[in-house]
C-alpha cells in the first residue's frame, strides 16, 4: 500500500469556526455523501438531543461532506436551528475514492473521520460520537444513548451491536467476528460497525497514529479503530442499535471480501504484540435492550455462489498451493469435487489462519492474497448457507458459536506460524 498525502489539513475557515465554538464536552461527527434521503431526520435528532437531553453540556455537531450532489449540505444547514451548534466542512474525494466503493459505503470516510477527530482534539471534546447519516439516529434518544455511557466515564469506547438473523452477514459471522474474538479475546459482535462513541483522549491518541496517511486506512479504519481500542486496553462496551444499510453505494461481494481481508491483515500486523499473548474471551457490557423480534432470514442463491467459488478455486489452485499446506489444499479440492456443498469449521479456520500467516510472511502481496481468498470465502459461505437453509435461528446461532469456538481452539496454529515467521 502506498502512503497517501494528508488530506485533512483543516482549512482556515473551518479553524475559525472551531475557534468560535471553543471548548466542548460532546462532539458529534456526521460524515456524509449524498445522504439527502435520511440526513435531515438525523440532524434534527442530533440537535434535539443537544437541546433536550444534554442542556448542560457544551455540544457541537461537525458535518464533513465528501462533495454531495443531492443537496445534503444545504439540508443539514436548513435543519440546524442553532447555528453555533453546527460546523460544516468538506473533504475532497480523489478519483480513486470514487472508482472503488469501500465496503462501508462512504468514500472518503477516512478523511472525514480524520477531520472530525482533529476537530475533537482542537475543541478538547470529552466525548466524540460518530453517527451514521443513514440512521438509525433519527430519534434523539438514539443519539443520547451513544453519548451517555462515555460522558459518564462508564466506558471509553462504545460500539454498536445489531439484532440480526444468524444467517445474515456471513462475512461478519464466518470471518470477522470469530477472528477478532479468538485473537483479541474480546466478545465484540460487530467489528465493522459504522457508528461509535469514544473518549476525546482516545481520539487524540488515534490522531497520532499512521493509519490516516496510508491507503489501507480507506477501508480498514472501522476495524482498526475497534481493534486499536482493544489493544490499548480501553474499557469497551456495546450498545444495541437497529441495523442500517446504505442504499446509495453498492460494493460487489468480491471487493468487499478483499477489503475486509486487507483490513484484517492491517489490524493483525498492527496489534500482533497484543493478540499473540491475549488469552480467553472477555464479555463486554451491553447497553440498551436487545430487540425481541428476530429479523426474517435472508434468502440466498447459494448454488450460484458455490458454482462461482468452485470454478475460481480450481483456476487459482497453483496460487493456493503457495499459501495452504498440501493436506489442507487437497481437502479443499476434495470438498469442491463433491456435489454437496461442504467445508467444515476446522478446515475453514485453518484456511483463514494460513492466509493470515501468509500475509505476515509477505511472500505474496496482500492484495493478491485477498483476491485469492475470495473464492474460498464464497465456498465457505455457500456451504454454510446450504447446510443451514432449513434450520431455525436458535440452531443456526449454535453453529455460529461453534465457528467462534473453532477459531479460538485453533489460535495456537496461527500464533506458532506467526512467531516462526517473525
Amino acid at each position, binding site marked *: 500500500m502506498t502512503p497517501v498525502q494528508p488530506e485533512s489539513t483543516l482549512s482556515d475557515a473551518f479553524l475559525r469556526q472551531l475557534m468560535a465554538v471553543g471548548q466542548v464536552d460532546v462532539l458529534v461527527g456526521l460524515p456524509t455523501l449524498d445522504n439527502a434521503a435520511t440526513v435531515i431526520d438525523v440532524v434534527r435528532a442530533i440537535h434535539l438531543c443537544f437541546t433536550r437531553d444534554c442542556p448542560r453540556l457544551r455540544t457541537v455537531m461537525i458535518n464533513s461532506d465528501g462533495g454531495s450532489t443531492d443537496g445534503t449540505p444545504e439540508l443539514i444547514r436548513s435543519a440546524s436551528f442553532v447555528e453555533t451548534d453546527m460546523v460544516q466542512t468538506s473533504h475532497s474525494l480523489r478519483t480513486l475514492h470514487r472508482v472503488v466503493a469501500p*465496503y462501508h459505503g462512504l468514500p472518503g470516510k477516512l478523511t472525514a473521520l480524520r477531520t472530525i477527530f482533529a476537530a475533537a482534539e482542537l475543541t478538547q471534546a470529552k466525548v466524540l460520537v460518530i453517527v451514521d447519516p443513514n440512521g438509525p439516529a433519527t430519534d434523539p434518544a438514539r443519539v443520547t444513548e451513544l453519548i451517555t455511557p462515555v460522558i459518564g466515564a462508564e466506558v471509553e469506547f462504545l460500539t454498536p451491536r445489531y439484532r440480526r438473523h444468524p444467517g*445474515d*452477514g*456471513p*462475512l*461478519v459471522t464466518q470471518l470477522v467476528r470469530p477472528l477478532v474474538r479468538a485473537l483479541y479475546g474480546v466478545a465484540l459482535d460487530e467489528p*465493522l460497525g459504522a457508528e461509535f462513541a469514544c473518549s476525546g483522549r482516545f481520539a487524540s491518541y488515534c490522531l497520532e497514529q499512521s493509519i490516516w496517511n496510508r491507503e489501507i486506512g480507506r477501508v480498514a479504519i472501522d476495524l482498526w479503530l475497534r481493534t486499536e481500542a482493544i489493544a490499548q486496553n480501553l474499557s469497551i462496551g456495546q450498545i444495541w442499535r437497529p441495523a442500517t*444499510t*446504505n442504499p446509495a453505494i*453498492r*460494493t*460487489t*461481494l*468480491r*471487493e*468487499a*471480501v478483499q477489503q475486509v481481508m486487507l483490513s484484517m491483515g492491517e489490524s493483525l500486523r498492527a496489534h500482533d504484540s497484543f493478540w499473540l499473548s491475549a488469552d480467553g474471551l472477555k464479555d463486554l457490557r451491553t447497553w440498551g435492550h436487545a430487540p425481541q423480534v428476530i429479523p426474517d432470514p*435472508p434468502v*440466498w442463491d447459494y448454488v*450460484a*455462489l458455490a458454482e*462461482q467459488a468452485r470454478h*475460481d478455486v480450481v*483456476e*487459482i489452485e*497453483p*496460487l493456493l498451493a*503457495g499459501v495452504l499446506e498440501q493436506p489442507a489444499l487437497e481437502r479443499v479440492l476434495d470438498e469442491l469435487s463433491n456435489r454437496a456443498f461442504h467445508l467444515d469449521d476446522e478446515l475453514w479456520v485453518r484456511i483463514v489462519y494460513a492466509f493470515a500467516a501468509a500475509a505476515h*510472511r*509477505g*511472500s*505474496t502481496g496482500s492484495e*493478491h492474497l485477498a*483476491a*485469492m481468498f*475470495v*473464492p474460498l470465502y464464497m465456498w465457505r*459461505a455457500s456451504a454454510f448457507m446450504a447446510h443451514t437453509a432449513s434450520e431455525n435461528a436458535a440452531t443456526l446461532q449454535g453453529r455460529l458459536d461453534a465457528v467462534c469456538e473453532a477459531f479460538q481452539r485453533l489460535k495456537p496454529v496461527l500464533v506458532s506460524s506467526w512467531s516462526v515467521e517473525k
Partner: protein
Amino acid sequence: MIQEIADELVQSWRNFATAFVLFVPRLVAATIIFAGGFVIAILARRSVKRLLAGLRFERLALRTGASEMLRVADMPSAELLVAKIVFWIVWIGFIVSAVDTLQFGPFQGLVEEFFRFVPRFLVALLVLAFGFLVGNFLWRATLLASVNAGLPAARLLSGTLRLLVIAITVVMALEQLGLATTVVLTAFAITFGALMLGLAIAFGLGGQDAARSLLEQHVKAKKQRETDAAPHL
C-alpha cells in the same frame, strides 16, 4: 649418418628435458592454483552464505516470490543458489588461471576472455532473475484479475503471458552473453510475429462470431458474478 641420428636423438631428449624442466614448475603452480582456488571458492561460498543470511536475503527472496519460483523449479534456496554461483565463478576463475599458467598455445588469453565474460554472465543472470520475477508477478496478477473478472481460460491467458515474459528474458540474457545472437533474435521475432499475426487473423476474420459470442457471454457472466456485498456484511 648414425652420428647424425644420435645427435638428433640427444637434441630431442635435451629439448624434451628442457621443456619438461620448464613445464614441471608450471604444472606444480597450476596444481597449487587449482587446489588453492577450490579452497578459496569454498570459503567464498561460505562467506557469501553467511553474509546473505545476515542480510536476511531469504526473506527478501520470499517477499519477491523468488523462493516460490525456485521451489517450483526444484532448485535450491535463493541463498544457496547465490552462494553456489559465487563458488563456481571463483573456482572457474582459478581453473582458467591454472590452465593459463601451463601456457598451452590453444588456451592462451583464456584469463582475459574469462574476465571479460564474467560481467556479461552476471548481467545475464540478473536479467534472467528479474525476468522470472516479473513473469511470475504478472502471471499471478493476470490469473487473479482474470478469475475475478470471470474471463474464460484465465490460466491459459496468464500462463501465456508468463511464458512470453520469460521468453523475452531468455532472449535478452542470451544476447547479453553474445551466444548466437542473430539466430536467437531472428527466431524469436519470427515466432512471436507469426503467433500474433495468426491470432489476429484467427480472431479478427475467422472468429468474428465466436469473438462476439465470447464477449457477450463474458458480459453476462460478469453481471452474474457481481453479487451485492450488503447482505454479507
